[in-house]
């Protein structure tokens, strides 16, 4: 049987809205009703909803760091004692408001979806796992989440919003909580402020430095970085500023990361679209190793790059892009016979899925990379213009600045 992802998403949204509406109709007027966005904000920052009592959404998705981790760990620690390592680098939650459900395009290209493997069809679904995963907030089930929610300081506001009896049905209350989170992440301007230097440049209000302009050109040029082939840099069809992703998936052959505890097992492989977290495409071996193309907005503020957080600086990440095929020995282990064990984070049978056709991956060992070190620096200068919270007076950007700037109009109308 086939299912339509967009219908699924709509159905879930309808269900969530109905839940909110029905429960709100039943609400007591003892506490003034707030709105779902504000409730979502409170839930997002509430440590008490985790088994440890010390972890909220904001712990990993730090608003001051563009809703991404503040530290440089490849994967974050969670669980009741905050000592259980995760499996993938935590992505930023910014600019997900324009993401779409996972689909295969007409030509078969996988596109859209939430999480690095696109398995969640919307933010409502995406918000479920962090509450329950053993390496994250580690609640046993929805009932445990709701039990903690019932004791939250904003529990009365939750009742006012979703109904006096909302906590009587754990599944419904969990759905309502995730609905509030989804509303917050979708509608709060701080998640998509579009206030980077590049936005000012597109609007004709800012000028880019010569180095930033050079980097922009190298980023776009099909014969150089060719970054824009996936990280689209032109305005969207509706005229909105670019989000620097085309929402597709790619297999890059990022080196195996020993910083992830799971890799101690030689049989463990994170294959993205075809598993192990995502299960519906397990038979699509041609998709193994492919992960979602992320937005590059705020990429210069990250401390762990790619799905497994192998690289910790932007320069190292860019060097990997352009030197992976020209100097592979930099990134992969070299055997006793001198052979380089390329794409070592994939089983040998699946290494043919790695993208080796497009620029800049079309070079071979010994050839000059598509970008020199100086050109990489230019591209990094450009990528820095994608950081939120730009201040023209100091020519600096800080995602935390966006939070303050959006306080007066925190919600998108």
């Amino acid at each position, binding site marked *: 049987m086939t299912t339509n992802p967009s219908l699924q998403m709509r159905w879930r949204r309808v269900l969530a809205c109905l839940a909110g509406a029905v429960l709100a109709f039943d609400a007591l007027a003892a506490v003034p009703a707030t709105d779902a966005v504000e409730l979502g904000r409170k839930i997002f920052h509430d440590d008490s909803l985790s088994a440890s009592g010390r972890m909220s959404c904001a712990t990993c998705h730090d608003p001051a760091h563009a809703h991404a981790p503040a530290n440089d760990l490849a994967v974050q620690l969670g669980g009741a004692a905050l000592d259980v390592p995760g499996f993938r680098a935590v992505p930023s939650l910014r600019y997900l408001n324009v993401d779409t459900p996972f689909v295969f395009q*007409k030509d078969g290209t996988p596109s859209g979806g939430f999480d690095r493997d696109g398995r969640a069809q919307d933010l409502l679904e995406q918000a479920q796992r962090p509450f329950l995963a053993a390496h994250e907030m580690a609640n046993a089930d929805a009932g445990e989440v709701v039990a903690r929610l019932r004791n939250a300081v904003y529990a009365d506001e939750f009742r006012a919003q979703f109904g006096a009896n909302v906590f009587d049905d754990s599944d419904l209350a969990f759905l309502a909580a995730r609905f509030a989170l989804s509303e917050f992440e979708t509608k709060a301007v701080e998640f998509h402020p579009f206030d980077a230097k590049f936005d000012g*440049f*597109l*609007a*004709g209000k800012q000028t880019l430095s*010569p180095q930033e*302009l*050079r980097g*922009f*050109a*190298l*980023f*776009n*040029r*099909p014969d*150089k970085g060719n970054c*824009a082939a996936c990280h*689209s*840099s*032109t*305005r969207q069809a509706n*005229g*909105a500023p670019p989000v620097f992703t085309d929402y597709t998936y790619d297999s890059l052959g990022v080196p195996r990361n020993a910083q992830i505890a799971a890799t101690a097992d030689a049989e463990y492989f994170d294959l993205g679209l075809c598993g192990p977290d995502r299960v519906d495409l397990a038979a699509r071996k041609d998709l193994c190793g492919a992960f979602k193309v992320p937005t590059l907005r705020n990429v210069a503020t990250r401390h762990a790059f790619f799905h497994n957080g192998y690289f910790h600086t932007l320069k190292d990440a860019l060097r990997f892009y352009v030197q992976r095929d020209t100097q592979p020995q930099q990134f992969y282990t070299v055997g006793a016979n001198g052979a380089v064990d390329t794409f070592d984070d994939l089983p040998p049978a699946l290494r043919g899925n790695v993208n080796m056709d497009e620029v800049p991956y079309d070079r071979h060992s010994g050839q000059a990379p598509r970008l020199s070190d100086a050109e990489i620096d230019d591209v990094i200068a450009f990528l820095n213009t994608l950081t939120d919270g730009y201040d023209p007076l100091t020519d600096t950007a800080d995602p935390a600045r966006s939070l303050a700037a959006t306080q007066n109009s925190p919600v998108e109308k």
Partner: protein
Amino acid sequence: MRQFINSGAVALALLAAAGPAQADEAALKAEVEQLRAEVAALKDAVHEMQTQRSAVAAVPVAAVAPSATVTAVPVAGTAPAPAQASAGGEREATTLWGYGELNYNHPSAHAADAQADLRRAVLGFSHSFDESTHVYGELEWEHAVTSADDQGESEVEQLYVEHALAPNYGVRAGLMLVPLGLLNEHHEPTSYYGVERNFVETAIIPSTWREGGVAGYGSTEGGLNWNVGIGTGPDLGKWDATADEGRASPLGSIHQELQLAKARDPSLWGALNWNGIPGLNVGGGVFTAKLGQGNTELPIDDTRLTLGEVHARWQSGPFDLSGLYTRGTISDTRAFNLTLLGQPTPVPKSFWGGYAQGAWRALEWDRSYLATFVRYEQFNTAASYEAQPQGLGAAAMPTQRVWTVGANYYLNPNVVFKIDYQDFRYDAAAFGYGARFDLGVGYQF
């Protein structure tokens, strides 16, 4: 105006039908004088008939194809008679016509890209509300199949109301063909040489180019035809710097075809054609429009397109010679292109093209004939870009040069079989690969 046009068409047809026997110049001049006299007599007769009709209350009269079709100077032979929509009397109010073409292209160095295509099928109609008011429309299907999963297109190519204010001038309103060049208004497959339309009048003048608006038209006794109009224009907000459509045809990638067209910035156009000597057409036109269309998201509000062209065509006996030159500019693109640095297709500052073509009706059998031709074209869709910071600007496109040799075989004046060979002096997928062999069949009725 129409009777004058019809008379001219008859004269040209007679001239063309005279064939190679008129090689002697003196005889030709004498015949031209005779034809002029006959044309004058015909005009008087038509005028007299119209005067008689004016006394009668407005009743439907015989409709004719839109001026774009009627004024089309066929490659040879007479213009097709519009088919009657119903089997009524001789004064039908509604008329149907149409044309179509099927093409085969075979790039010699890329045989895998050989392609056969039902290029287009067009049905046209007109309806006369009264003697002076008509509506004309053309409905077109391209590439055989149109659906969400196919590449075909279904479109309204023309749809306008025409009202004659006097016998020799009037107004039109609706979706109209822009009166530039030799091909745009006369794009039926029987009206041009070669399987494909020439590159200059597809890449630079984006035939079939139409805009919605209001236009005035008319003609003088001396053979001067004019057309001025105001209407919609292209939208630079549609420019896609990541795709190659803008390199294949700058205006073709941003014209709106009156499909929910953004219409803040009107366009203006004007065209003059002189047909005072039978067989000769000399003309030119200008189109200008701002391209921003009120877009507040992109720095394109000051951009302006100006496109001009001049052309000439001389048909005498078995010979048919023509030439055209066109040049376009788009101003104030620097700021917009700065936001597209490094992308493969920035907006050009200038683009141009020109061609010279010679055809010779080599063989003739009753209503059939074979016309051979040769055409040389040069064009550049991005001859220059506005300056960018040093080292960051895009290089101008190379000028394309194309030789085309071939033949049109007219089974009758309304059915044509075509064959040609095209040699491209620049390898580009958007235009061709080195050389191409083409076959085609076309018709109109």
